[in-house]
């Protein structure tokens, strides 16, 4: 059967769109990368990772406190939001009917659209005003509000994709529903779920506005949850808008670091799942050989 000209043309056009889109998407990323390296590459050194900041004009300042602070607060925030988001996502995809479910779905839709600054103001009113002190906890709480809806939404979409008959097959094994959900549905889509979680965490890691009025920022390394804490985005923000070259360089280097950290996180998550499978099969092979 010969394909008509019109259909062939459409097909070519389609291909062109696909390739063009992919190129167009990658260009900004590389431009930003280039931009960051060009402006901040020269201040990427060991000092940058192992020193605390120094004032303008002194060399050797770093962002150790901000890197650790970001890890601390994003970690704490995801510790709250990821499990909660997974639970809500499961609820929506598995029991998605009924009033509470539609209320929740509606809530999540609204939460994804809350500007980060409103989240910051909210966390400020809840934690900072009542504790009379800026704190890392308040920052983590604000970040968790950013993470929560993204995790919930992606979890719902991903779990919905598991065909119904797979769930029924699980039930037919005489398993209670919750076991089917946890051990078959959720476990079966864990690597896809990771994508959503990483997406959420990477977004939270780059947010300035929710942290400005909550974690506040600090010039020192701090580990206590009830004190102000530095974070990469706040530090980047402060330095990027300053007129001094060495601070601006630090800001770009910081942004570069942030992206690399997220890249590392992403790769780690992917590698983790792959490695586990490889590890298992190697172990299996080994045990079989000794048995024989």
């Amino acid at each position, binding site marked *: 059967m010969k394909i008509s000209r019109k259909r062939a043309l459409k097909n070519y056009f389609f291909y062109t769109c696909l390739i063009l889109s992919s190129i167009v998407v990658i260009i900004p990323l590389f431009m930003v990368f280039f931009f960051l390296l060009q402006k901040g590459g020269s201040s990427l050194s060991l000092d940058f990772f192992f020193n605390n900041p120094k004032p303008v004009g002194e060399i050797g300042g770093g962002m150790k406190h901000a890197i650790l602070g970001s890890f601390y607060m994003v970690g704490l925030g995801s510790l709250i939001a990821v499990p909660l988001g997974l639970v809500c996502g499961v609820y929506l995809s598995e029991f998605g009917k009924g009033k509470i479910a539609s209320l929740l779905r509606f809530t999540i839709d609204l939460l994804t659209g809350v500007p980060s600054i409103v989240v910051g103001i909210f966390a400020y009113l809840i934690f900072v005003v009542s504790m009379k002190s800026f704190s890392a906890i308040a920052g983590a709480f604000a970040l968790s509000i950013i993470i929560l809806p993204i995790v919930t939404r992606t979890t719902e979409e991903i779990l919905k994709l598991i065909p119904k008959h797979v769930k*029924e097959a699980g039930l037919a*094994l005489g398993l209670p529903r919750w076991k089917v959900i946890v*051990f078959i549905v959720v476990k079966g889509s864990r690597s896809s779920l990771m994508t959503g979680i990483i997406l959420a965490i990477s977004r939270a890691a780059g947010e300035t506005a929710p942290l400005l009025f909550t974690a506040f920022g600090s010039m020192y390394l701090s580990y206590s949850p009830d004190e102000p804490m530095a974070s990469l985005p706040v530090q980047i923000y402060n330095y990027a808008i300053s007129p001094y070259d060495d601070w601006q360089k630090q800001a770009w280097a910081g942004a570069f670091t942030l992206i690399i950290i997220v890249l590392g996180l992403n790769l780690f998550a992917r590698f983790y799942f792959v490695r586990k499978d490889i590890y298992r099969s190697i172990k299996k092979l080994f045990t079989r050989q000794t048995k024989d």
Partner: protein
Amino acid sequence: MTNTIALEVKNLNAYFGDFRAVKDINLTYHKNTVNAIIGPSGCGKSTYIRCLNRIHEEVEDASVKGEVILGGKNIYAENADPVEVRKHIGMVFQKPNPFPSMSIFDNVTIGPKLWGEKDRTKLEEITENCLKKAALWDEVKDKLHQDGTSLSGGQQQRLCIARTLAIDPPIILMDEPTSALDPIATVKIEDLMNEIKKEYTVIVVTHNMQQARRIADYTSFFVLGDLIEHGLTSDIFTNPKEKKTEDYISGNFG
């Protein structure tokens, strides 16, 4: 024959909302037999078989009335636990559906594992046993840690049967298990049914009359939710009592 009763169905009705899809079925199944259910599309065969292990009620709006007696107890009694019921009545579905991102080994052992079996050697034993029973062992024994979905369709379906066998249910329901498979795979599954009836009671819905003839000891004929006729397979196919059955079998109907 020293047949004892495996499952007894009394006045079973199944509904989708107000729609009655299965009407007043009364049937008795004997142990160690293969029982086929045939009938035209949309006749309620699948709905009926799904009532037998209480999967039907997982569908939205669906409900069941009547009794199904298993080992002297009604599985639809108020205090009956559907989960417990399904442990005793396994099911294989129309489409092969290995669990996603799970190895062959995990697919087979997930049932026993979640039922509390932790001993690794025992789980390995179960895997080997069930895969042998499902006539899959020789094909997969070297790749137990590959993803279950990497197998071919026929292999996947046999994997699903092995998975069901792993929880050792006395009764196994099969809902058109070969409809998605090629003839060679179909033959393998049919042989398998013949083999496992030594230990299990099999109830199978099939679209294919020849298949029923080849494998079943008893056959029931359904039309639009009604049980038209039930009897020994040889009787149904050679000497049907009802006109409708005869028409269907000779190809004048459905």
